[in-house]
């Protein structure tokens, strides 16, 4: 068995907010052309018909205000460029038009095409170049946060494409329920930043199973003492607020929150794991964004296995039903472990249903029931059962790396 998988005891997922792949990692094509980011061939028309190219002019804060629309109808416009015909094809030509709808300002609407230069994001770009970056990780739904985060916890959004509360649990259990009720029992925890930031989407779990939750300080303590659960889901800080520690700056990177604060947070999670040598060799950390937040990306989302649910034309707001049979816009995703070769690029297709899918298969093996979307989603960690396909195993090194980066956080 590959030693990376043999040693793996902990999977940690850090889910950030609302940034597209091209916006955050698009600059890396210039470093490694195999990373499918921004090129000079790309553009979007503005409302005057002029073509707007992506430019490395993104700012940490103050640029994407108002928050770009990323509800279902707006994302439909972004992906299909306004084409509503039955046989339409995704062309990713409606981002500038969509942002124009919010302020009716042509100049401002062009900012949706801006991306970060590599040196602006030393944490995210370093991790992408040092470990495994996913060229085809998509949001689960062409829609907003809540329904997309649901896929990370349940493998489905139970038919929702919006921000409404999910009344769930049957028939598809959360990944946490599956783990803590398994035989043998597994451990699992959701770490929100603090009680003033709390959890996003899974209020349902919070009000019924608060024992599943901990704070970010507890995450840091659990890393230090070697008490990290088998599976952890980490949430960033969603708001600027006061605390006993002083001023807490939102670290979720949701526009218009400061992107550098998110960089610090990502580095802090990475460092907490890396500082404990035992934990570092036995942990895989996935950094992923919940959805693109209305920001430009050039890769058309592919079709996927339909879920067993259907959203009505009224629910989608587009006049068309949605069978959960295509993915949302592409987002940044990076898998981190000292067993991953430097510069790994993954071209297989993933979405957030891959998260419970991977954790379930790795820790529990066969499990049912799971949603059709989760069952068909690819896994980013191979189940540690013979035979492991070396072409698919990302934790493939025979010996652990000793050249992994450190950040001054």
């Amino acid at each position, binding site marked *: 068995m590959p030693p990376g998988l043999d040693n793996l005891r902990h999977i940690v997922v850090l889910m950030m*907010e609302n940034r597209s792949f091209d916006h955050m990692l698009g600059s890396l094509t210039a470093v490694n052309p195999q990373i499918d980011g921004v090129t000079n061939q790309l553009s979007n028309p503005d409302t005057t018909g002029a073509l707007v190219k992506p430019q490395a002019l993104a700012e*940490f*804060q103050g640029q994407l205000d108002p*928050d770009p629309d990323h509800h279902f109808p707006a994302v439909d416009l972004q992906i299909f460029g306004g084409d509503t015909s039955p046989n339409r094809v995704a062309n990713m030509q409606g981002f500038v038009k969509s942002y124009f709808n919010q302020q009716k300002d042509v100049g401002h609407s062009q900012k949706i095409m801006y991306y970060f230069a590599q040196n602006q994001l*030393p*944490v995210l770009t*370093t991790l992408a170049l040092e470990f495994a970056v996913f060229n085809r990780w998509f949001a689960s739904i062409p829609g*907003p*946060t*809540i329904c997309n985060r649901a896929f990370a916890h349940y493998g489905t959004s139970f038919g929702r494409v919006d*921000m*409404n*509360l999910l009344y769930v649990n049957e028939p598809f259990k959360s990944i946490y329920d599956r783990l803590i009720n398994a035989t043998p029992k597994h451990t699992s925890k959701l770490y*929100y930043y*603090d*009680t*003033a*930031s*709390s*959890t*996003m*989407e899974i*209020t349902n779990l*919070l*009000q019924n199973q*608060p*024992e599943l939750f901990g704070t970010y300080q507890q995450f840091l303590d659990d890393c230090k003492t070697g008490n990290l659960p088998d599976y952890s889901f980490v949430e960033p800080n*969603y*708001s*600027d*607020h*006061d605390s006993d520690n002083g*001023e*807490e*700056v*939102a670290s979720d990177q*949701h*526009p*218009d*929150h*400061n992107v*550098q*604060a998110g*960089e*610090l947070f990502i*580095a802090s999670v990475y460092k907490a794991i890396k500082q404990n040598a035992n934990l570092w060799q036995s942990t895989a950390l996935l950094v992923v964004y919940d959805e693109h937040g209305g920001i430009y990306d050039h890769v058309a989302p592919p079709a996927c296995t339909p879920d067993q649910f259907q959203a009505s034309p009224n629910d989608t707001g587009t006049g068309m039903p949605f069978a959960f049979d295509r993915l949302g816009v592409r987002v940044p995703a990076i898998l981190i472990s000292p067993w991953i070769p430097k510069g790994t690029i993954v071209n297989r297709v993933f979405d957030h249903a891959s998260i419970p899918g991977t954790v379930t298969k790795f820790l529990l093996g066969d499990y049912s029931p799971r949603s059709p979307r989760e069952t068909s989603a690819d896994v980013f960690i191979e189940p540690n059962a013979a035979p492991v396909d070396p072409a698919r195993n990302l934790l493939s090194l025979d010996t652990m790396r000793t*050249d*992994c*980066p*450190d*950040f*001054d*956080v």
Partner: protein
Amino acid sequence: MALIHVPRPQNAWNPNRPINALLKSQIVHLHEAELKLPVMLQTGIYINAIKTESEAADYVRQVTEAIHAAHQAATAKRARSRVRRTGKVRTKKKRPSKPRRET
């Protein structure tokens, strides 16, 4: 590999920033949970009047802590009643056996 410097954000903290759609939905979700709490643990905050991130954070904190408190109270109560039940059995007085009559 050299230590990589991570720049710190400058002047980023703005607790008076108007809440975004995400925080609004979080507040609505927590409000639904709040309505199921015992009345004495409810905040009495009118959520439609929450406008800034600082106000949102204060509400989110109060409800999150109240949810934990409600569950902790229920757990403690359960434990107490378990002790009471167990205690009853243990402290049950034995009836003094009647002296045997010599036959």
